[in-house]
C-alpha cells in the first residue's frame, strides 16, 4: 500500500512526516539503549530480506494482489524500535530508487508501514505473551494481520483528510482487500517464525537483541 505522489496533500504529507520523524528519533534512541553495534548487520539482513520479500506480490483473488509488509516479522525478531528503523530503510529506498511510494507521501508511508506496523505488531505480541502463552504461529498470524489492517486504516484516513476520496468510500474498500492481504501477511509471518522456532534458530538470531523472545 505504498501511496504514490498526488494522493496526499501538503498538510497531510508534512504532518505525517513530522510524526514519523519524531517516532524514528525515539526508535533510534531506544534501539541504541537495547541493541548494540553488532546487531547492525543482522538488522541490515532483515531490511534486505524485507525489501526482497516485498517484491513478491501474491494474488488474493478478484484480480488483486498483495505483498508481505514485514513489520510483524521484524518486530518479533528485533523488537519494535529496531523494526521501525529496518522498515523505514526499506520504505525510503523504495521511494528514492524504485518509484514505489511517492516522495511527497514518504511521511505517510513511513507512518503507516514502518511506525504503526511495528507498534501494532508489538502490542499484539505483548498481549499474546511473546509466543509462550499462545503458539507463535497464532500470535504471528494475528500480529501480521493487525499490522496490515491498521496500516490500511491509517492510509485511508490520510487519503480522506487530503480530500482524495471520502472516508466512507475508501475505508471499507481498503479494509476489504486488506483483510485478504493481511491474512497472507499473517500466514507468511507465522510460517517463518514457526519454522525458526521449531528448528531452534531463534535464540541464535536474537540472542542479544531487543527481540520479543528476550
Amino acid at each position, binding site marked *: 500500500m505504498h501511496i504514490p505522489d498526488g494522493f496526499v496533500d501538503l498538510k497531510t504529507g508534512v504532518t505525517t512526516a513530522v510524526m514519523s520523524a519524531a517516532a524514528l528519533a525515539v526508535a533510534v534512541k531506544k*534501539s541504541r539503549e537495547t541493541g548494540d553495534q553488532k546487531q*547492525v*548487520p543482522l538488522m541490515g*539482513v532483515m531490511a534486505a530480506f524485507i525489501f526482497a520479500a516485498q517484491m513478491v506480490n501474491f494474488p488474493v483473488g478478484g484480480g488483486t494482489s498483495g505483498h508481505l509488509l514485514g513489520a510483524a516479522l521484524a518486530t518479533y525478531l528485533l523488537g519494535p524500535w529496531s523494526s521501525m528503523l529496518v522498515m523505514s530503510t526499506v520504505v525510503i529506498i523504495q521511494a528514492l530508487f524504485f518509484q514505489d511510494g511517492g516522495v511527497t507521501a514518504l511521511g505517510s508511508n513511513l507512518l503507516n508501514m514502518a511506525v504503526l506496523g511495528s507498534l501494532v505488531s508489538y502490542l499484539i505480541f505483548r498481549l499474546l505473551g511473546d509466543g509462550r502463552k499462545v503458539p507463535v504461529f497464532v500470535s504471528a498470524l494475528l500480529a501480521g494481520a493487525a499490522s496490515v489492517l491498521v496500516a490500511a486504516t491509517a492510509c485511508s484516513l490520510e487519503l480522506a483528510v487530503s480530500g482524495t476520496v471520502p472516508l466512507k468510500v475508501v475505508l471499507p474498500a481498503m479494509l476489504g482487500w486488506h483483510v485478504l492481504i493481511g491474512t497472507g501477511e499473517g500466514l507468511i509471518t507465522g510460517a517463518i517464525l514457526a519454522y525458526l522456532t521449531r528448528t531452534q534458530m531463534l535464540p541464535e538470531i536474537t540472542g542479544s537483541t531487543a527481540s520479543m523472545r528476550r
Partner: protein
Amino acid sequence: MSRRQKWVIGGLLVALIVAAFLSPFASTKPDGLERVAEDHGFLEKGEGKEVIKSPIPDYVMPGVANETLAGSLAGVVGTLLTFILFVLVGKILFRRSGDYADRKPGMGPGAKGGSL
C-alpha cells in the same frame, strides 16, 4: 567465521534468492491500494505526479531487454543496496552506543548494549 557472521551471510543469501528467483513469479495484478484507487476513480490523481525520477522505476532494470532478467537484477541490486545502506547508516547511528572497540573479546553477557 562467527555464528553471527554465518547468520548474516546466510540471511543475505536467502534474501538474494528471493529477489532473484521468486520475484519473477510475483503477481502483476494491482495491489490493494491501486485496486481501490482504480475502483473509486482516484488512480489518475497520481498519474504523472512523480516528484523525482527514480533510477530503477517499478523494479525493472533499465536497458535490460529480457523482462524477467530486468526484474531479477533490480531485485538483487535493491537487496544489496538495502543491506549496505542500512549497515552504513546503522554504524553512524549506533556509533556511540557502548564502547565495543575498547572491549576485549569474550566478555560475555556484560558486552550487551545499554551503556547510555
